[in-house]
């Protein structure tokens, strides 16, 4: 093993039926470093991590861990844990109804009897030492997601880990929470832990990481010091082609759509049971607009009201100048509205069903109970969109849950495109998916708009919205506080409008 390395993986192979998930991949993690593992969806990041944590068993290659002179065999997550490899997954796998302390000591209960006072004290000490501001006796479910995430890390660290894997830990955190997490990561790094950081946020990689390993199509592209790899190069290495994608998109937006006629959708005084203040909203044919605001500002609630996903408590809706009633998803669909929800796993996919069934679902419901889409037709539709959106799947009959996040998202997108909507609402379509797919989706949005579709696009990455939207509605504290268009569409203007409230408060 190299000096200072805590983990070395050599020539790792892993094959799934029909897919070579990993081919001859090397990976080295040093003591006291934060190492970004980057790659598009399906590049093999997750597989590599799962091999390392014993969820999958490698088909070939060697894994060395410092302190063991022979290659180690990892057959189960428990074995990985014993070797000092701990993982914190994107979805927090703790028990929300137990206390923080109970969660931390869950897996190492000391026999049948537990001295709770002791446990609580130890937990509190551990949390304090890591600078996590939380009461150990508090119920975990009542803590914010960020704190839960950090408790998960505390638990991992407490089990004497030398390798800490953070798999997309920041995808459900807002900026200040991410910052807190980074403080913790830097502290652990100082203490000598090697951290593998998997994320889709480039900013975060450049903020906190020391080195980057890039994978593509199950193969190693390379390992780089962070200073020697500018952003554009990183993106092009992940995509495998030299391409200035961002510039590409900008060019297309220059011909902003023209508004004419009556709006495709117009709502007045809309409000829902989720407690947003009544708001007005309209969108024209071929227009792309968006809701922006901080996490929890009510942007998702707005579009959920439009689609009737939450209980609609008031407001008048006109479509193409005709008054209509939309209080349920079914009515929205009948009126040609489609909605891609924010939480793909909870609201988007039907996990055990095939890619094909997931794609035809909305269209089938629209068609009605007594008009099933024939198998042949369904396969035809599915194949059409698999080709069109470049969905990577073994077959149309593969369960959707076995696809990578970006490809799942494309399937949901396909589901709605198949219904040929007049008005498409995309709530965070680019969240938690790789750069390449993000670019694909933004391009698709603009293409659809140029064909006359109206689209509302929500993203927590402001620059994505600035690139695609011609009008931005700004939300703050569940209230619509401003509208930006034309020259006003700049990062500063958005920030100022979002932050507006605080300024007033200072006066």
């Amino acid at each position: 093993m190299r000096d200072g390395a805590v983990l070395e993986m050599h020539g790792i192979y892993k094959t799934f039926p029909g897919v070579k998930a990993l081919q001859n991949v090397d990976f080295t993690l040093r003591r006291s470093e934060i190492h970004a593992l980057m790659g598009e969806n399906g590049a093999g990041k997750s597989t590599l991590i799962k091999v390392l944590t014993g969820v999958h068993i490698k088909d070939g290659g060697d894994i060395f861990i410092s302190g063991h002179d022979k290659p180690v065999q990892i057959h189960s997550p428990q074995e990985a844990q014993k070797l000092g490899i701990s993982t914190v997954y994107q979805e927090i796998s703790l028990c929300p109804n137990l206390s923080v302390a109970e969660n931390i000591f869950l897996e190492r209960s000391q026999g049948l009897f537990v001295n709770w006072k002791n446990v609580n004290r130890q937990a509190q000490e551990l949390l304090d030492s890591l600078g996590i501001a939380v009461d150990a006796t508090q119920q975990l479910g009542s803590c914010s997601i960020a704190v839960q995430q950090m408790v998960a890390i505390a638990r991992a660290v407490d089990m004497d880990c030398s390798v800490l894997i953070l798999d997309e830990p920041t995808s459900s955190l807002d900026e200040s929470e991410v910052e807190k997490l980074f403080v913790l990561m830097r502290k652990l790094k100082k203490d000598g832990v090697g951290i593998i950081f998997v994320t889709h946020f480039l900013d975060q990689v450049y903020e906190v990481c020391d080195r980057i390993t890039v994978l593509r199509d199950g193969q190693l592209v390379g390992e780089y010091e962070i200073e020697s790899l500018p952003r554009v190069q990183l993106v092009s290495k992940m995509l495998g082609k030299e391409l200035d994608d961002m510039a590409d998109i900008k060019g297309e937006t220059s011909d902003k759509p023209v508004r004419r006629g009556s709006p495709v959708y117009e709502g007045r005084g809309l409000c829902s049971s989720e407690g947003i203040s009544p708001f007005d909203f309209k969108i024209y044919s071929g227009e792309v607009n968006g809701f922006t605001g901080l996490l929890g500002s009510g942007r998702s609630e707005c579009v959920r009201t439009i689609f009737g996903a939450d209980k609609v408590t008031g407001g008048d809706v006109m479509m193409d100048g005709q008054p209509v009633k939309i209080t349920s998803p079914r009515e929205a669909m009948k009126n040609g509205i489609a909605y891609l929800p924010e939480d793909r796993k909870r609201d988007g996919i039907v996990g055990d069903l095939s890619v094909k069934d997931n794609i035809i679902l909305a269209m089938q419901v629209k068609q009605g109970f007594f008009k099933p889409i024939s198998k042949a037709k369904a396969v035809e539709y599915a194949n059409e969109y698999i080709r069109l959106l470049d969905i990577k799947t073994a077959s149309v009959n593969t369960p959707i849950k076995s696809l990578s996040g970006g490809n799942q998202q494309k399937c949901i997108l396909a589901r709605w495109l198949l219904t040929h909507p007049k008005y498409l609402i995309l709530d965070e379509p680019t969240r938690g998916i790789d750069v390449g797919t993000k670019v694909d989706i933004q391009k698709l949005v603009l293409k659809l708009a140029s064909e006359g579709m109206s689209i509302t696009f929500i993203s927590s990455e402001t620059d994505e919205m600035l690139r695609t939207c011609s009008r931005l509605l700004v939300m703050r504290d569940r209230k619509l506080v401003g509208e930006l268009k034309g020259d006003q569409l700049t990062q500063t203007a958005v920030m100022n409008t979002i932050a507006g409230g605080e300024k007033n408060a200072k006066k």
Partner: protein
Amino acid sequence: MPKNKLSDLWGTISRNQILIPVAALLLLAFFNLLADPTFFRIYLNQNANGDPVLSGNLISIIDSGSELAILALGMTLVTAASGGQDISVGAAIAISGSVLLRVLCGADSRSEEMQAPIIVAFLIACVVSMLFGAFNGALVAYFKIQPMVATLILFTAGRSIAAWINNNELPIVKDPSFGVFGNYIPGIPIPTPFLIAILCFVVTWAVMKFTTLGLYVQSVGINEKTSRLNGLNPELIKLMTYVLLGLCVAVAALIKVSRISTINYSVVAKDIEMDAILAVALGGNALSGGKFNMAASVLGAYVIQFLTTTLYKFEVNATALPAYKAVVVIILVVMSAPTVREKLTALTKKLRSSAAQNT
């Protein structure tokens, strides 16, 4: 390379969920073949009315398994949509059968003639049975009560409701034309219950083919939130599955009551709910809901009946029967558990690859 193709075929089969009930059926058949080949003999006899009828163990299996197979259809839907089971089907059969007899016999439980056409009585029984199904379904879908707890109510009360419908009398239908549903149609040597079961399968197949019931039920069972956002009404679909199970119950009740032309409230269809649930499980369907395979459930039902008949054949004491049955069921259920199947697939893969290396 034919060998490769063969192993591919084997791969497809071993992944298919219908493998478990088919394997169980073959195993039972093989066992009987070894023990006593005459087990499979089918005779042409004459029944008491002088009509030619088929008899033999196989005929007895397809005959007595009919109610269970019909119930398995509805139970599969309920399981898939609501992720739980209806344990009140036995009691519901008692109610439905009681209603049937009440309408047929009218006020006089010993009347010589039927007071209403059988079809009318059957339709009324269907409506009542579906209403009880709707009651269960509403508790599950709208009040979000655990299916087993929700149906426990009818499970507890059902048989006394059934007795109350006929003032605790045991009406007897004396007209022989009522007996055809549970016995034989004169001139046709195949038992009617089996024919009714076949009819139910065909209807179910047609419903699956010409409506979107399958997709909706699975979608709701797997992800309710997504289903709602795609325009489905999950509550209504769950309710519908319980109503459909109610329909299956009414058909099963017709057969049960027709077999003996009367009813015994405390014994009729006793414990059949457990066998119906077991049939769904033996079919490899997840009892937590989601994807389902109707044919596998039906096969599961016949496996259970095959097993019962086999045990009778070996002259296992009737009181000891459940214990023997339990042993076999344990083996079958463990074999069909997803974790075990995964391990087995991995094992066969390993064996095959090592065999490939050796050659």
